[in-house]
């Protein structure tokens, strides 16, 4: 789901990020109060239409759906077992609507716009000591560094496998070390790029 921005000029893309996030939030909460299969079915079709409106290629949309399939199927199976098929269908429809809508927002909104929207939403909380720009920065950096950390995890796994260690949780320790080192470097890089943090006090002289 990360950084899969699909560039195009459509009404869906043009909608302000804040509006899209609000709609997502509203739909997400109301969905769970809707118990009519017809209404939920209509919602599924509605989301499909939004995809068409945003001119998302079928393959992209399909791929998004596929990634949640195993998860959705297992929930459906459980619901069917314990609450009957009607509930299972309702839950299935809700998952599809929610996931597809969330993906549509990511596909049609630039990260920058999304972060700006989050910052705006948090602005009223400033008096409580919350710094919206900082929250925005954290969100952006999380998106940026998830793939980096995943890459590091893969490297550690590969290095261990090369030395004959198979399937163990031992890779967590080196990964943690790597991640901490990354965090250290990152703090310095942010400093160098003009983000002010608390001054470090390393390099003290022995007595």
């Amino acid at each position, binding site marked *: 789901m990360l950084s899969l*921005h699909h560039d195009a000029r459509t009404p869906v893309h043009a909608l302000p990020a804040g509006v899209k996030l609000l709609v997502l939030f509203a739909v997400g909460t109301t969905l769970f109060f809707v118990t009519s299969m017809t209404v939920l079915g209509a919602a599924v079709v509605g989301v499909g239409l939004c995809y068409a409106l945003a001119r998302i290629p079928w393959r992209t949309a399909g791929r998004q759906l596929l990634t949640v399939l195993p998860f959705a199927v297992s929930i459906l199976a459980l619901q069917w077992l314990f609450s009957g098929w009607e509930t299972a269908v309702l839950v299935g429809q809700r998952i599809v609507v929610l996931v597809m809508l969330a993906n549509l927002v990511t596909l049609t909104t630039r*990260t920058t716009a999304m972060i700006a929207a989050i910052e705006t939403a948090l602005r009223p909380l400033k008096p409580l000591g919350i710094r919206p720009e900082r929250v925005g920065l954290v969100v952006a950096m999380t998106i*940026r560094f998830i*793939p*980096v950390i995943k890459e590091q995890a893969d490297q550690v796994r590969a290095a261990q496998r090369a030395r004959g260690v198979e399937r163990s949780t031992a890779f967590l320790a080196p990964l943690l070390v790597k991640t901490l080192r990354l965090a250290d*470097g990152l703090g310095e890089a*942010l400093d160098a*790029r003009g983000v*002010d943090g608390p001054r470090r006090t390393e*390099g003290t002289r022995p007595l």
Partner: protein
Amino acid sequence: MIEIEGVSQWFGERHVLRDVGLTLTEDRIGVIGSNGSGKSTFARLLNGLLVPSKGRVAVDGLDTGRKGREVRRRVGFVFQDPDIQIVMPTVAEDLAFGLKRHGLSKAEIALRVTEVLAEYGLSEFRDHPAHLLSGGQKQLLAIAAVLVTGPRYVVFDEPTTLLDLRNRRRVGKLVRELEQKVVVVSHDLELLAGFERVIVFDGGRVVADGPAEESVAAYVAMHPPL
């Protein structure tokens, strides 16, 4: 001008720089020396990422300890590993990041970003996730993101170490053609060829200081073939 006066640096008990005094005025300055000789530590002093345990570093008269913020605006820093330096998810966003901190308006930022993307041959990657760029492209982006904010000096710490020959040459050319004054720490002696001044560190001390050819010859002489 960057002045380093009577600087010593300790990390705990470890004495990493020993009484270094230098005045940097040249446009192209290289720094070489063995692993652990204190080059990176020295580089980090130049923009106040590190404040010396003893002595003083000043950039255009601004003390790095007291005027860290202004110093860092003047002195850009490019790290060896671009992965830590790129902090935003996409190429254009990362370029915009530094500019935002310099108080430019949205329109100015957009304009500058477009210019810089074209300048560094990154236009087609504008909305590309940064992690999908190649190593060379990442380093170009990291350098572009520093230069876009218009520093007067740029410090590079091993900018070509992780690159292949082609990208090494590309970064080398870029460094040579910069209008800024640059300080380049490197093990890549080819990169420093023709530099006005190359400083050699050994065990935290400056052991040679002169034009590139002389300093490199001194450095090579210090390490005869095994």
